[in-house]
Every structure is written in structure tokens, then in C-alpha cells.
């Protein structure tokens, strides 16, 4: 790693990182506050409805039975906006090098510096790992503050919610590792971003549909979302450590393959 390159990466990503972090904090805060205001009415009128239960089952990727406060409090962790913010950050930051640099034609200037390609890749990745922690941390903070303001009884302990946040962090690291790999094999950043987004959407789709279809369920093991189970963590059904390890392993393997490709390939601005 190189401090100068880390400074450059921070300089170029700080605005988007802060925007994503602020967005996630505000969203989690609002979810907490809003749940307090419509919790009673929602519980009485909507939760008994079967289609509402199916929507939650699809979002959580697991059968939830009767939708209660525990399921409702998961809304802040499984809402598509949350996933979109975390994934968008992973995709934006992890496709900067080399695809982004190739795309904007600045790769020549970057690689003319006395640094190895491994160092360039590692510096960028280090910035992603830290900035992503900041984003998930902001979401977690928003969730805690939102719950505190609303005064709603928590569906789980703070430790359990911390595990949920760590599970989300591992998910975003896996998305980042995949984006870094795609960035290494693509000359166009748009192509790398589009492919990463499509894979994550497919992953979400597989996971959502797996509760309704046994064939989809059997192939959903390849979906990243299969290893993000916040509801299971709160219910004590899922092993968060196992899921986190699987997600980190996927992210690390893809990241390493991306590094090898980046170090070995020809690089030209397009």
C-alpha cells in the first residue's frame, strides 16, 4: 500500500462516501421513527394479511410465519434502499481502478508513478474497506438512534443488531470484491458497474423467490443474499458467523483473482 495513493483515493471518494453514509443514517433514523407512528395501526390492519406476510418473506428470503414486531423492525435492514446504498457504494468505489482509470484516460499518469500495480489495487481496496465500514456504521447508528427516539421495544438485543450490521458489512465486502474483479477484467467502467449491479439484482431476485419455489431455492446457494439473513440472526436460527465467513471468502477470492488479473494484464487507455 502507498500512503499517497490512499490519500488520492480518499480525496476522490470522500464526498460520495459521506453522502452514502448520511443517506443510510437518515433512512435508518426515519424508519425507526416512522415505525413508532404507524406500528399499532400496521400491526392491527396489515400484518394479518397473507400478501403482506409474503412480501416480508420475499424481502427476508425466509418464511416468517406471522409478521410481528421482530419482522417489522427488520425493515431498516432489508429495505431495497438500504441494499441499494450499500451496493452502490461498493460498486462505485471498487470499479475505480483499473476500469475507472482506463475509462477516463488517467491510468497512464497513475501507472507512471513508482508503485507496483499490487500497491495501487491494495490502496484502493483499503479505502473501500474503511469507507464501507463507515457507511454500515452510519446505518447502524441511525437504526439505534431511531429506535431510541421512537421508544419501540427492540426485537433483539444490541449484540444481535451488531451481528446484523456485521452481516451487512460482509455482504457489501463481497459485493466490493466482485466489483473489483469485474473492474480488473473490463476496460469500461460502465460495463463493470452494470455487470456487478445485474449480478446483485439477480442475487436479490433469487433470494426473494427462493421462499416460493423449490427449484429457485436449490440454486439460491449461489446468491450472495442467501448469506445475508438478518431475520434469522434475530430469531437465533441462522449462524451469522458462518454467513459472514462465506461472504468474506467469496469477496476475498474474487478480490484476489481481480488483483492477479490486474497485475498481469496489458493496460491501455481506451
Amino acid at each position: 500500500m502507498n500512503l499517497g495513493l490512499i490519500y488520492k483515493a480518499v480525496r476522490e471518494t470522500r464526498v460520495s462516501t459521506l453522502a452514502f453514509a448520511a443517506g443510510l443514517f437518515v433512512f435508518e433514523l426515519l424508519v425507526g421513527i416512522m415505525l413508532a407512528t404507524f406500528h399499532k395501526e400496521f400491526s392491527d390492519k396489515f400484518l394479518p394479511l397473507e400478501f403482506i406476510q409474503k412480501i416480508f418473506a420475499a424481502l427476508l428470503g425466509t418464511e416468517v410465519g406471522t409478521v410481528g414486531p421482530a419482522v417489522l423492525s427488520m425493515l431498516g435492514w432489508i429495505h431495497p434502499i438500504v441494499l441499494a446504498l450499500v451496493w452502490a457504494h461498493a460498486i462505485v468505489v471498487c470499479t475505480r481502478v483499473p476500469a475507472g482509470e482506463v475509462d477516463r484516460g488517467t491510468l497512464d499518469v497513475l501507472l507512471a508513478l513508482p508503485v507496483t500495480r499490487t500497491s495501487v489495487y491494495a490502496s484502493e481496496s483499503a479505502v473501500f474497506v474503511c469507507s464501507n465500514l463507515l457507511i454500515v456504521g452510519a446505518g447502524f447508528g441511525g437504526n439505534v438512534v431511531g429506535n431510541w427516539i421512537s421508544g419501540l421495544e427492540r426485537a433483539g438485543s444490541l449484540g444481535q443488531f451488531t451481528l446484523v450490521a456485521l452481516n451487512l458489512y460482509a455482504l457489501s465486502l463481497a459485493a466490493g470484491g466482485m466489483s473489483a474483479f469485474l473492474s480488473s477484467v473490463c476496460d469500461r467502467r460502465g460495463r463493470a458497474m452494470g455487470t456487478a449491479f445485474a449480478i446483485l439484482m439477480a442475487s436479490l431476485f433469487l433470494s426473494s423467490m427462493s421462499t416460493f419455489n423449490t427449484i429457485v431455492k436449490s440454486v439460491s446457494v449461489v446468491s450472495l443474499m442467501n448469506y445475508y439473513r438478518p431475520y434469522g440472526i434475530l430469531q437465533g436460527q441462522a449462524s451469522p458467523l458462518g454467513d459472514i465467513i462465506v461472504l468474506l471468502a467469496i469477496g476475498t477470492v474474487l478480490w484476489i483473482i481481480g488483483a492477479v488479473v490486474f497485475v498481469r494484464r496489458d493496460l491501455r487507455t481506451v
Partner: protein
Amino acid sequence: MVERLTKCYGRRVGVEALSLRVPEGTMFGFLGPNGSGKTTTIRVLMGFLRPSSGAARVFGLDCCRDGARIKAEVGYLPGDLRLYPWLTCRKAMRLFGRVRGRDLTKAGGDLAEEFGLDPNVRVRAMSRGMRQKLGLVLAFAHQPRLLILDEPTASLDPLMQDKLYGRLRAVVSTGGTVLLSSHTLNEVENLCSRVAILRNGRLVADESLDRLRSQARRKVTIRWRSVEDALRAPPDGVDWTERSAFHWHGVVRSPMTDLLRWVAEQPIDDFTLESPDLAEIFRGYYV
């Protein structure tokens, strides 16, 4: 520097079996039309591209394996320079100094002043010429042993070009080496002591400029005293391109002595022998 270097892009050949050595302490001109393989060679030297076969070395180090060590002592200006839009000259010196592990603020500031570059203007607000100046400042600031410059005078006004030429001469006079790729044959002729010419990815010439000139055919012009004198039989060893009433123009192809002996006996008003310039030599390789 490069030995039997071949670089292919799929089926297309970028450079083929190119062997070239740039002597230390020289200004080396690298010539060739578009697509001849100049930029490919430079990119291999910079470690951006991997050779399909052959070897590329700088300071005795392998360009792929030891790229970082090599680039610590190389200043590079790409032909199609793109810089980060948020960068100013001052920020660039801080950033690149951090990466290189040395303070470049003083050297960069002096260079910016010399090239007339405002150190606080962002790249996004710069003209092409200003961006090129910043690229040159970045290439020179760490006082590299080797400068690899791809079309360095593109977008520079004549005054700045003169300043750059002065800088390049100063680099060479202090033992530095310059590899200059350019389409501007005049500047190569004025600056370089040795040139390599590429055609279709192959080396067609690698000579000192003096030797290239001596090998090239000279132009001859004869002005006769009268129309009658111009009617006499021409000597052998010259390809006459024009023979009018008073003037003969041609290109000498055999040893000069025969022609000079013949001219000495002729009733002529004027006789001119022109040394060919680089542009003509260059064209000679492509016609």
C-alpha cells in the same frame, strides 16, 4: 534497452522483433508515422504492456518485474495526456511527492514558474496547453535519469517549446537521457543526436543524425550561363528531376567526386549541393 521485442494485439502486430538501445546521456529521437509502433514500444518500456516475446529493459532492469524501481527514475509524458480534473499544480506536487516519498513542492513550483503555469488552477479549468505544461512539470519535477516524452510540444506555443528545448538540453548536459517521440521533425533534428525510425512495427533505421545525413542522397542544382550551355549532355551518377533552359535539378546517387570533377569543367554561374534535412530522410523511408 529493447531486444527482439514483439508485441501483438490479437492478430495485429504492434511492434515486431524490435531491437533498440538508447545510450545514456543522449537525446534520442523516436520517429515513425501513426501506427508504426512508437507508443507501443514506450508503453512496454513503462510496463503498461507486456511483451509478446523479447525483452525490454531500462537501467538494466526488467520493465515488467521491476517497473516500480524503474519508474522512480523515469519522467513520463504520455501522448494523450489526461489528468485528474480536481488536480492543481500545487496539489499534484503534494500528491505525487507523497507517492514518490519526496518533497516535490519546491521543484514543482520552480518548474511551474518557468513554464508560466498558475499553480492554483484546477485541471478542469485549464486549456490544453496548460495541461500539457502540468504534464511536463510532473515529468521533470523529480529530476529523473530518463525522460520518456511522447509528443511533448503538442499544444505548446513556440515560446514554451523553446523553454522546453532548453530544459531538455540541460537534462542531457547533466548526464540525463531523453527518449523523444515526435512528429515534428524539425525539433528532433534540432535536439537529437541519434534517431530511430519505425515503419509498420519494424525498425528501419537506428543511426546518429550525422550518419543518416551522410547516407542520404544530396540535392544538386546547377545554374547555366546560357541556354546553349544547358543543352550539353548530363553526367552519369545523378538522377535529374528537372532540366530547363537555365537550371538543372537532381539527386546525386554515385560518389560526389565524379560530379565535382565534371562541374569544374563546365561554364556554370552557380552550383549548389544541399544536405538533406530529416524530413526528407524520413520521407525517404516511407516512399
